[in-house]
């Protein structure tokens, strides 16, 4: 057992190393964009950004910044050889049609059945914004969630039932978190690895024991 929880970068590195060579991958805005820092240039992994591009490269710096070449988080990025551009309907045809092998999304909550809540924390004062999250969560072949396993007050984000509004039902295949990597398959949880916590304590804290 590793004695320390993973840092955000370590989580991102684990995700990157688990993505098979040749995959088409969409990285959600926020935390998941860290994954791109750990994708090996020779891995043949191709990044999709829902605002109309395949073959997205690293964040642009200096003279490479072009305000008409941005990612889903509106950050200037670069173009890799083999890239292509397309309009929004075609971009979401890729997502909805099951052509994206893996998407990596952040989460407020994930249920034991794989339901995802990541677009609205539930506070009625918030301005609701969904973007492409629902399309990605329901459309990608596999959905990975990247998050801290417990919130700041220590409550588990992996829950029996989500209390925050859902993004999609039964869509999460795997959770990569600071404390554990957890598979969800056919409504069942399987802890693959723990970090800085024993499996027994982990199951206690998420209410599985």
């Amino acid at each position: 057992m590793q004695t320390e929880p993973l840092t955000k970068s370590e989580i991102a590195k684990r995700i990157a190393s688990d993505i098979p060579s040749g995959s088409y991958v969409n990285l959600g805005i926020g935390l998941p964009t860290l994954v791109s820092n750990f994708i090996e240039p020779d891995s043949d992994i191709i990044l999709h950004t829902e605002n109309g591009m395949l073959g997205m490269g690293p964040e642009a710096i200096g003279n490479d910044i072009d305000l008409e070449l941005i990612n889903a988080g509106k950050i200037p990025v670069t173009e890799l050889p083999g890239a292509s551009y397309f309009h929004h309907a075609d971009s979401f045809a890729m997502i909805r049609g099951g052509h994206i092998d893996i998407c990596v999304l952040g989460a407020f909550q994930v249920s034991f059945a794989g339901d995802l809540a990541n677009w609205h924390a539930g506070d009625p004062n918030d301005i609701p914004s969904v973007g492409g999250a629902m399309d990605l969560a329901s459309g990608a072949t596999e959905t990975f969630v990247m998050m801290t396993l417990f919130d700041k007050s220590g409550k588990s984000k992996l829950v029996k039932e989500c209390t925050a509004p859902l993004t999609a039902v039964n869509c999460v295949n795997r959770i990569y978190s600071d404390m554990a990597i957890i598979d969800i398959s056919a409504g069942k949880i399987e802890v693959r690895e723990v970090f800085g916590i024993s499996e027994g304590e982990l199951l206690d804290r998420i209410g599985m024991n």
Partner: protein
Amino acid sequence: MSASFISATEAISHVTDGSTVALSGFGLAGQPLHLIDALCDSGASSLTIIANNAGNGETGLARLLGNKQVAKILCSFPRQQDSQIFDELYRSGKIELELVPQGTLAERIRAQGAGIGAFYTPTGVGTQLAIGKEVRAINGVDQVLEFATQIDVALVHGHIADQQGNVIYRKTARNFGPIMASAARYSVVEVSRVVPIGELDPESIVTPSIFVNAIVDCEVKYAN
């Protein structure tokens, strides 16, 4: 009918009070800033706006919102770091918001342009955004019925047009432009350059002239 080459002011005269106006763009990339400025100056009010976001900073769509010209916005992602003008209007109940998943927004626009009245999509099933919508199982997958979105005027940011009105775009500024141009009763594309007919490669034209009513040549503005 073939495309006119007119000024932004002339193009915007097709927008009237209460019109539904689609604006291309994802954040600021591909937002038709020159056309939106003309729309601000026109004073047209009670507009319904269709766009991916709800404005950034103080320019473009944000300026239009700040002018109180917009009654309703249909979009996927209004909240941004610099969406303060929308945020204030929304929190004070001065603007109506219809929130739509981004892919459903794109497909509803595409459907309108393609003469498809409605379609079934798995996106949103079991969520708040499907409440009140018809759901049907197709091949064992629940899908929501979504209707095409009618648009009076589309304001689109393109890159280069030829003198017939064929348009190409630039990088991720393409985004919603082609589908909005196809969907509107009257479609206006602002471009940074107009070239003679025959200079664009017929294999690479993204928006054929059949989808374009007016081209606004912004070359002088862009050069400044």
